[in-house]
Structures are given as C-alpha cells and as structure tokens.
C-alpha cells in the first residue's frame, strides 16, 4: 500500500536543479533570474505525446482544436518520445501496453511529466477486476497529474494541464526524478508483472549516474535481479584503432622487452 507521497504544498517555489554537479553552489546572482526564466519557459512550452492506450484519447482532439485550443497554453502535440515532455496516458493500460508505455517513458528526455487521464489509470476504473489491466499507473512510473472521469471532458483535461503548468512554474513537478531516485521500487513493481527477466533498452541506472540523480533507493534487490539478465547497452563510441599500427607497436614493445 503506497500513498501518493509528500503531496507538495502549492505556492512554495523550489529551486530547479539544472543537472548541476552536487557540491557546486550556484553563486552568481543571475542564477536565480536564469532559473526563473527557464522554469517560466518550461511551463509555457510543453510538447505532448498522447499515447492513446484506451478510450480517453477521443477527448483530446477537441482539447487541441478550435473550441478549447491547447496551443494557447503553449502545448503542441508531438510524435516521438524524444521530442515530448508530457506523456498522456489516456484510458485503461493493459499489461501488454504497459510494457510499451514504460519503454516510451524511458525514451523521453526529462524533465518529463506523466498525466493519467481516465479513472482506469487512477485505480483500475471499470476494469478494476480484470486480470489483464494495470490498476495503478504510478506503481510503474511516477505520475504527475491524474485526471479522473470515465473520459473526462476537454475542460477537465485543460484544467489538468493548467494544474501541471502551475506545478512546473512553481517547481513542484519533479516527479520524474523520483523514477531515478526510487528506481528499485518501480522496477520491483514492473518485475512483479513482467517476470524477472524484464528489461528495457534504456540503461536507467547509468543515466542516473550520468546526470547525478542517484538516490538512496535507486539500487536494491530488484535492480540486482536486473543485473543478472541485463545485457548492458553502452553507446558505440567512435574509435580509431589501426591493427597494423598496434601490431608494429606491440612488436616494438616486445622488441623492447626482448633485449
């Protein structure tokens, strides 16, 4: 039984850590102004990838087009997870779809926000009894905003988005860090569903280490289980390796050692 932990108190702006190395204090005075500007830009411009898993997707076209016009809020629909900030999960998430949703989530560049539309993502919705659907979305990935309703009307969707924009502006929408900080918890839930050899091409632990988002709970029993099955996917780095040169140098080394 987990709770939506530490419900952030509205209105208290918290400094945005821009991938800054821990320990380097941001001294220059412009830092705050720069943070303010960046947070404002992040809140004013959001790229939305709506992953229409279930029936909720039909509510989004009206939210985008002339009557409710999401673009007023600076929100544009985008196609590929690399470009998107918001992952809109609309409708029930079957176990098979959940695999793809997690893959898409991990392919997104953070700061990324997840909005669960329709009550099916909140607590199972009308498929709460079904063996095939995931009941609680934020077991598997940190969710920023839930918009309940068995297909919420566009006004509700816009209201949810406004809530998200408000959270971003005040800096409280950093649930995405939670995915890195408590990766073991999420991985446990995922392995519970998909079995022990579940893995995604994205190497989340290495990413956490790269961007210094390592929390205490990132590694644990489940990540240990993952280590056994994971075949690491490091990037193919460019290398200039000329065997003829190597052989000659090694021969000259042997020459050196031979004397």
């Amino acid at each position, binding site marked *: 039984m987990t709770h939506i932990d530490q419900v952030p108190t509205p209105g208290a702006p918290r400094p945005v850590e*821009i*991938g800054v190395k821990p320990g380097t204090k941001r001294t220059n005075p412009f830092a705050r102004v720069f943070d303010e500007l960046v947070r404002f830009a992040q809140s004013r411009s959001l790229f939305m990838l709506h992953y229409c898993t279930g029936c909720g997707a039909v509510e989004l076209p009206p939210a985008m087009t002339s009557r409710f016009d999401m673009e007023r809020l600076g929100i544009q629909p985008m196609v*590929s*997870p*690399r470009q998107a900030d918001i992952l809109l999960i609309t409708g029930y998430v079957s176990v098979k779809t959940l*695999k*793809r949703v997690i*893959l*898409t989530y991990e*392919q997104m560049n953070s700061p990324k926000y997840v909005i669960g539309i329709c009550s099916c993502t909140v607590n199972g919705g009308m498929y709460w009894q079904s063996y095939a659907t995931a009941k609680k979305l934020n077991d598997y990935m940190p969710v920023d905003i839930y918009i309940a309703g068995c297909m919420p009307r566009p006004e509700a969707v816009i209201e949810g988005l406004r809530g998200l924009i408000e959270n971003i502006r005040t800096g409280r929408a950093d649930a995405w860090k939670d995915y890195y900080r408590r990766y073991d918890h999420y991985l446990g839930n995922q392995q519970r569903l998909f079995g022990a050899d579940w893995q*995604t*091409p*994205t190497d989340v632990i290495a*990413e956490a280490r*790269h*961007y210094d988002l390592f929390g205490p709970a990132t590694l644990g029993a489940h990540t240990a289980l993952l280590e056994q099955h994971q075949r690491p*996917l*490091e*990037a*193919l*780095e*460019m*290398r*200039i*390796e*000329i*065997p*003829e*040169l190597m052989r000659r140098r090694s021969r000259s080394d042997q020459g050196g050692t031979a004397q």
Partner: protein
Amino acid sequence: MATSPTTVVDQLLAGLHLPDGFDAVAGVIREFLDQVTNSAIWTRYGQQSLEWLIGMNPVDRLFMLSALTLLLMLLLGRLRSAGVLAVLLYGAQFAALLSTDTLFGAPLAAAVRITVADQSLHWSYDALSWFFAMITIGTGFVTAWYAAGSWMRRYREAGRSARAFHVALALNCFGMLLLVGSADLLSLFLGWELVSWASFLLMALVGGPAAQAALKYLAYAISGAMLILGAIALIYGISGSFEYDAVVAAIRSMTDAQVWTLLLLLGGGFAVKLGLLPFHLWQAAAYAEAPGAGSVFLGAISARMGLFGIIVFIVGMIGVSRLMTLEIPYTFMSSRELIAWIAALTIIVPTYTALQQHDARYLLAWHGIGQGGYMLLGLMVGDAVGSAGGLLHCFNYAITQAALLMAVFAVVHRTGTADLNQLGGLVTRMPLTFLVLLFGIISLAGLPPMAGFVSKWMVYRSLITEGMPLLFVAAVVGTLGTILSVYKLIHNIFLGQLRVEHQEVAEAPLSMLIPMLGLSALIFLAGFIPGPALSWVAQVQGQLGLPVVPWVLGGIVDPRGGLDMIWLVGILMAGFGVGALVFYGFGGRSRRVHQLDNYAGGHFLTADVHYQYSDNFYAGLMHLIGPWYRGSFRWLERSLAATLDLVSFGAEGLYRLAQPTLLMLAAAVAMLAWVL
C-alpha cells in the same frame, strides 16, 4: 663541386614557388644532403652521374625517369619493397616535372626525336602539358603510395602478381607523359595508343568480370583510336606534314565540310576515352572492376586524356569561335551547342544512373563519366571564367575522385564488400575514412568549403553571363543528382545501424590512410585558397589563346559577380563556431545511447533484425523517373553488336559456299563486263 644535391634542392624549391614559410623545411633537407655529399661512394661516381642528370634537357630527364620507373618495376616488381620504390620514383618524376618549369616559363622541346621514313616524332612540354602531367604524376604518386602497404599484401595473398600491377601503373604514367608532351600528330597517336593499351592492361589485371569489362573497353578504345588515325591521315592528306603548326595552318584553310568530318572523327575518337554520351557504356564497369588502386588511378586521370585531346584539337586548333560558325543544317544549333548539349546530357544521364547503383565502386565510376561533362561544358562556353572552370574542374575532380575511391576501397579492404545494402554504421569503426569520404562527397557535390564548388561555380557563372538557360538548368539538375547519390553513398556505408558482423572492423591501415588524409587536406586547401590552382589554369589559358581568367588568391574578381572563397569559408567556419557555441554552450549535457535504444513505435529493437533503410534509397523519386530509364544506349550497343554478327555471318557464308567455282566465274564475268 658546382652542381651538388643542395643546389638541386634549391632549384627545386625555387621551381615550386612555395611561400617563404617553408624555409625551415628546406634547411633540414640541405644539411641532410651535405652529409651525403662528403661520403665516400658519392665522390667516386655519384658526382658524374649527377652532373649528367642535371645537364640533360629537363623534358628528356622526365621521360628518362618515367622509363626508368617502368624498367625498374619490370625488374623488381616482385620485391616486397617494390611499392616504396615506386613511390620514390614517382616523387622523382614529380620533381623532374617541376624542374622543367614550363608552366610559368616558355615551352621546352625534348631533345629525343625519332624519324621514320622522313616522318619525325618529337615532344615538347608547354603549360597545358605541364598541367595534365602534374595531375598524372600526382595521381600516380598517390596511387603508388596507397598500393604500397597492406593493400598490396592483401592483393598478393589473393594470388595476383604485384609486378603486373606496378608495371601497368608505370606504363600508364609513361604513356600519359608521352601523350601529353606530343608535338606532332604521330607522337600524339603513339602516346594515345600507349595510354589506351596501358589502361587496358590495368583493367584486365584481375581477370573474371574485369576482363570482360576490359574487352568491352578495348572494342570502344580501338574504334576510337581508328577514328583518330583516320583523322590524322585526312589531315596529312591536306597539310602534307604531321607538325602541329602545319596542321593549324591546314585547318585554317579547310572548308567547313572538311572541318565537320575532322570534328566528327577527332571528336568521336576523344569522346570514347572521355566517356561522352553515346560511348559511355564501357567506363563504369571497366573502372569499377579494376583492382583497388588501379581504379583510383583510372577514375582520377585516365578519362581526362580524352579531354586533353579535345582541348588540343577542338579548343586549341579549331577554336570555339570557329565552332560557332559551323551550323548544323535545318537546326539553329551550331556545332558548339551540339557539343555543349552532349556534355550537358553526359552530366545528367550517368549521374542519374549512379543514383540507382547499389555498388559503391560503380556509383563513383558512373560519377566519373558525369563530371567529365562539366569540364567539356565549361570549355565549350569559351569565355574566361567558363573555360577556367572546366580546366580547374579537371584538377579538382581528379583529387576528389581519388580520395573517394580510396575511401571506398579502404572500406572494401576492411569489410570485404562494396555492396551498399550490406554495409552500414561504419562511422564508429572507421572515422578517418568517414572524414575522407565526407570531404570527397562535399567536393563532388560542389558545396562551398571544398574544391569542387569553385570550379562548378565558375561553370555556372559563365553559363549565366553567356545566357544559356537550358544548359544551366541541365547542369544544375546534374549537380542535384550528384548530391542525392553522394548522400546515399555516405549514408549506406557509414551512417545507420552498425551490423553485427562489422562490430570488430578496424580503421583503414596507415599506408592507405596517409594518402587519403593528404588528398582530403588538398581538397580543402584547393577550396579554401583556389588562387594557386587558378594561376596554373590562367597559364594554360594564356598558352591556348583563350581569354585569361582574372584570378586573385581567394577566387575571382569580377563586377558581374565575383567569388572570394577565403571570405566564404571563413564566414562558414565562423558560422560553425557560432552553431557550436549555441549548441554546446546553451544546451544541457547529453548522453550517448546505443543504436538499439531507438524510437520504433514502441517496439523493442533486437540486434538480429537490421533496422536500416538503404535498399531502393530514393523510392519516392524512382516512382516518377523509374520508367524513364529505358536503357536506350544499351539497346543501341546491343543492336550494333547484332549487325556486326550478321555481317560476319554473311561473310563467313561466302566461304561455306558449295560451288566456289561458280563464284569465281561470276567474278570473272563481272570483271570482264566492267573492263569491256
């Protein structure tokens, strides 16, 4: 000790017109040579041979060195270090060429002279021959270096004779030097035959498909040579002598009809070698199937001998102005437009055939034909900038094609295949080769920082100012086709997913990398500072009697639209600096990810499915222009071969006649009837 190696070095450096920055290098060479001169062996017979070598007529020295290279390769070809020896010899030939100093000085006649039955052959070097000889020996030097190291080791392991290769290369160089320095029709034809047979040898070295392609080349080359021989005979008939000045006088006195026949014969003969449109079918297979380094040499310079012939005869002797007066009846086209249109079509058709190739060597070979069209088009426009563009493109394209083919054969050396559908993602394993290919394709496509842009810009500018819209559009369509096919080349080989079997591919060996990197540096330099190259071209124009291009270190100064490459490349580099500043400065930290961590619509990518698009690369375009490829030239070639078969069948039929005596009787009666 009047002449000693140090004085020779000084003379060479002076000959090179190098900017004074190179004094330090010259100093190092001088003391090294001082040590040599006071060694024992040198005093005994080193000195006399040096004096003899210096005293010789420079052009003779060049021929002697080239013949020496051929002889040494014949004798020592099998040695392991034959490659290194070849490189040194080509270097010596280059030095000898520099010492002739005929580019900036006056034309120099060679002392060697052969007279046969009161016809004499003699050779002389002038600016034009110096220009082509410089490209030839340069390409020979680079090719020999490329073939010196592990490429030759692989070539030997494949069971082929290194000696034959070196001999073929040396013969090619020697033949071209003779051809380029010819001063009368006979020596021209001697050089021409030697060049075409030498390139036949270089093509047929590897046997199998290369032999078939070489045989097809031979059929074309010999018929071309026969056309030239016929033309020479006709000229001799009119002028009574083979000397160039007599020929020029004879041409001036020729009637239009005679000039037309001369144009068709000579033009046809040289067009076969240059690969202009109706005779271009042999070149792609012949140049692509030749052994690696051989293909580099052939691709870079061998086809330009045809261009040399056209320059000497059609541009030099007949003159573009005379071409304008030769009207084609019933059309308002003059012969100049006809040749220009052949050149323009030669730019378009091979380039769009290259687009369809799925073998990298064939793709580049087809481009070789296409780019020949630019040179001819530039020359046919005839104004200062146009002809300079054509000539400069000959130099620019030689270094570009050499670099490109070397990169492709480096990939073949490592991965074993040149098939674009079997490669991919090699940028992470062969980055330097990628760099060389990148410089090459930018220059081939004619984009700014590289050399190709300068000469193509000049051709375009002259087409605009001379007011030839349709030719201009044809040339641009050709360039765009080039850009499309070169991107396909670099994308299918270096970009995209790296195949599992190519994970452990290594970078090209050092002996192949040094010439490749040297050439790409030269490509960038010739693009950044086109001044020196333009000065050579200006000399050639002056010697040919064409209007000379107003060149300056950065490019061309002209009120109707100049070009200053130093500014352009400078601002481009500044732009890249700004781009890097914006990208790396403002942007946050990024992390490199594996190639399978890719967006595939939610699908989990695995290594066994090759997630790459390279086959039928321009599918969209091919839907439209696909049906336009009807292979009409292949049909023309096939029908020609069929008529030849029919005629030979008929001729042989005569010999299988049952009643030969009947034939004799008929012949006797016919003769008697004719006589009485």
